[in-house]
C-alpha cells in the first residue's frame, strides 16, 4: 500500500501518514537533492543560525573563556541598563531620524526622476540621462565618503561655496543633510531604474484612452502613471522598511566623528564601539538584539499593512 505508484494515490495516502513517515518517504525519493543542498543548509546553520543562538549572550555576562553555556546568566539586566541610559533615546532618535529622512527623500526623488525621464521625447537623451545619473552608484562607499569629507572640510570646495570655513561635518546639525544629499546623489539614478521599468510596462492603451477623453499629460500622470507603478512602489517600500534599523550604518561610521555623536550615532555604530572596540560583548549584543527585533517587527508590520491595503506581500 505504502508503495502505491500512482501520484494521486500516494498523495492521498501521504496525507494520512504521520509527519515522520512522509518526511522519510520524501528523503528516500529525493535523497540526491537533499544531499546536494546539505552544504547550503550547513552554511546557513553555521553562519546565520549559530549567531542567532549566540545572541543569547545578550542575557548573560559573557566571558569568552567560559563560553556561551558557562557564562553567568543575568536575564534582562543588560537591556534594563541600556533602556535606562540617556543614550538609548539619542540612538533611537538618530536611527529613526536618519533612516526615515532618507526613506522619505529617496522615494519621491527616485519616482520623480523616473517620471521625468519617461516624459522625455528624445529616447536618446533619456538613455544618456539614465546612464549618467546611475554612474555614481558604482563608486565605492569608502570613496564617496572620502569625497564628501574632502569637499566639506574647512577648505573644501563645498564648504567654500557655502561661505563657511570650518569643517561642515563638525557641525552636528549638518550631518543629516550631508548624509541624505550625498546618498541621493549616489543612488537616485540607480533607484529610478526599477520605476522606469515599471513605467514602461504600463498599458499604452490607457494613455490613448485618456487622451481621447481629453486628459492632459499632468492628469495622465496622476491617474494612470502613479497608480500603474504603485505595486512596485509598495514592494520596494516594504523592503526598505526592512532595512530601516540597519540602513546606512556603514556610511555613518565613515562620516561621523566624536564632535557629532549626539546627532550621528546610531544603534549599529554604538554596537560597534561598545562591542568591538571596548569588548563589552554582552551589553553590545543586547543593543544589537533589540535592534534586530525592532527591525523584524517593522518588516512584519509593513507587510501586514500592505497585504490588507494592496493585497501585496513580500512573502
Amino acid at each position: 500500500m505504502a508503495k502505491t505508484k500512482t501520484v494521486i494515490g500516494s498523495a492521498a495516502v501521504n496525507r494520512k501518514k504521520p509527519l515522520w513517515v512522509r518526511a522519510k518517504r520524501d528523503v528516500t525519493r529525493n535523497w540526491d537533492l537533499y544531499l546536494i543542498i546539505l552544504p547550503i543548509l550547513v552554511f546557513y546553520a553555521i553562519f546565520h543560525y549559530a549567531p542567532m543562538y549566540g545572541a543569547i549572550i545578550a542575557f548573560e555576562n559573557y566571558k569568552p573563556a567560559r563560553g556561551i553555556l558557562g557564562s553567568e546568566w543575568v536575564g534582562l539586566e543588560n537591556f534594563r541598563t541600556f533602556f535606562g541610559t540617556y543614550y538609548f533615546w539619542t540612538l533611537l532618535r538618530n536611527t529613526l531620524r536618519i533612516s526615515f529622512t532618507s526613506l522619505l527623500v529617496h522615494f519621491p526623488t527616485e519616482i520623480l526622476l523616473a517620471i521625468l525621464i519617461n516624459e522625455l521625447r528624445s529616447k536618446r537623451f533619456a538613455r544618456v540621462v539614465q546612464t549618467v545619473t546611475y554612474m555614481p552608484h558604482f563608486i565605492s562607499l569608502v570613496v564617496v565618503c572620502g569625497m564628501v569629507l574632502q569637499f566639506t572640510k574647512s577648505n573644501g570646495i563645498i564648504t567654500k561655496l557655502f561661505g563657511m570655513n570650518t569643517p561642515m561635518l563638525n557641525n552636528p546639525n549638518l550631518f543629516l543633510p550631508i548624509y541624505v544629499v550625498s546618498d541621493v546623489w549616489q543612488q537616485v539614478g540607480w533607484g529610478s531604474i526599477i520605476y522606469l521599468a515599471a513605467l514602461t510596462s504600463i498599458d499604452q492603451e490607457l494613455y490613448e484612452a485618456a487622451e481621447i477623453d481629453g486628459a492632459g499629460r499632468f492628469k495622465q500622470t496622476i491617474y494612470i502613471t502613479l497608480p500603474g507603478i504603485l505595486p512596485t512602489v509598495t514592494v520596494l517600500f516594504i523592503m526598505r522598511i526592512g532595512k530601516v534599523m540597519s540602513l546606512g550604518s556603514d556610511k555613518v561610521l565613515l562620516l561621523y566623528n566624536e564632535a557629532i555623536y549626539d546627532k550621528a550615532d546610531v544603534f549599529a555604530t554604538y554596537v560597534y564601539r561598545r562591542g568591538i572596540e571596548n569588548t563589552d560583548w554582552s551589553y553590545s549584543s543586547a543593543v544589537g538584539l533589540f535592534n534586530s527585533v525592532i527591525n523584524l517587527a517593522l518588516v512584519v508590520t509593513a507587510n501586514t499593512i500592505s497585504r490588507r491595503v494592496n493585497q501585496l506581500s513580500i512573502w
Partner: protein
Amino acid sequence: MRKLTRGEQIFNIFNVLFLFLMIVISIYPMLYVFFAAFSTPSAYMRQGGNKLLFCPVGFSLASFKAVFKNPSIWTGYGSTIFILAVGVPINIVFTMIGAYVLSRKQLRIRRFLSLLILFTMYFSGGMIPIYLNVRNFGLDGSLWALIIPNAINTFNLIIMRTAFEEVPDSLEEAAKLDGASQLTILFKIMVPLVVPTIAVLILYYAVYHWNSWFNAMLFIHKREKYPLQLILRELIIQNSSIFSSELSTSGAEDEMISETIKYATIVVATVPILAAYPFLQKYFVKGIMVGAVKG
C-alpha cells in the same frame, strides 16, 4: 499624435533643462576629483579649493607618482583581487546549488526550507554574535573570513531560484529518463539556460566584494592583508600622512601634496570600475529588473 498644448511645451523645455542639470550634478564631483588629482599640488592649494575647477590647476603627475610609490595601494589591490578571484566562484557555485534545489517542485519541504533561508534576510543575531562566531571558527585574521561567511547572499539566491523555476519541467524529466544525476542536470542542462542571470549575479557579488570594507575592518589586522577599500579608508578618510614623508621633507610642502594625493588615490581606486562600467551596465540594468521579482 495631437499637437502639444502650450503648457506641455513649457514643461518639455523645463524638463530637458532640469535633467541636463541632473547630468551635470551627477558628473561634476567626479570631474572635480580628476582635475584636482592632475593639478600641481602647490597651485591647487593656493586656489583650487576655493573655487570650482573646470580644468586642472597647472598640470602635474606628482600626486600619482606618490600614490604609485605607496606599497599599500598594491597590497590592497592584491587582497581585493584575491577575494574576487576566490570568493566570486564560491558565491556562484553555492548560490546555484541552493537555488536549484529550492526550485525543485518535487521537494516537499521546499517551502519550509525557503522560509528558513528567507528568514535570515529579516532577522540576524547581530554584529557581535556574528563576529564572535566567525572568530570561533578560527577565521579571524584571514581573508577567508571575508569569503566563507558571505558565500551566499540570500537575496541573490532568490533571484537565482526564480530563474530556475522558469525553466520548463519537461527538460528535467527528459534528462532523468536518460539517467542523469541531479548535479548533471544542474550543470549540464540548467546552467546554460540561466547564463544571463548568472552573469548578473557574478557582477553583484563582485561589486559586493569590491565595495566591502566593514568586515575587513573587523577581521583583518595586518596592514599588508588589508583589501583596497580598507586602505582607502585609511588614506582618504582617516587622514593618514603615510604618503607625505615619501615625497618631500619640508612640512609645508607635505601638506600641499597630501591634498592632491588624496584625489589621485581616489582616481586610482575608481578608474578600473568606471572603465569597466560601459561594458557592464547593460547587465546591471537587466539585473535590477530580475531583482524586481519579489522574494
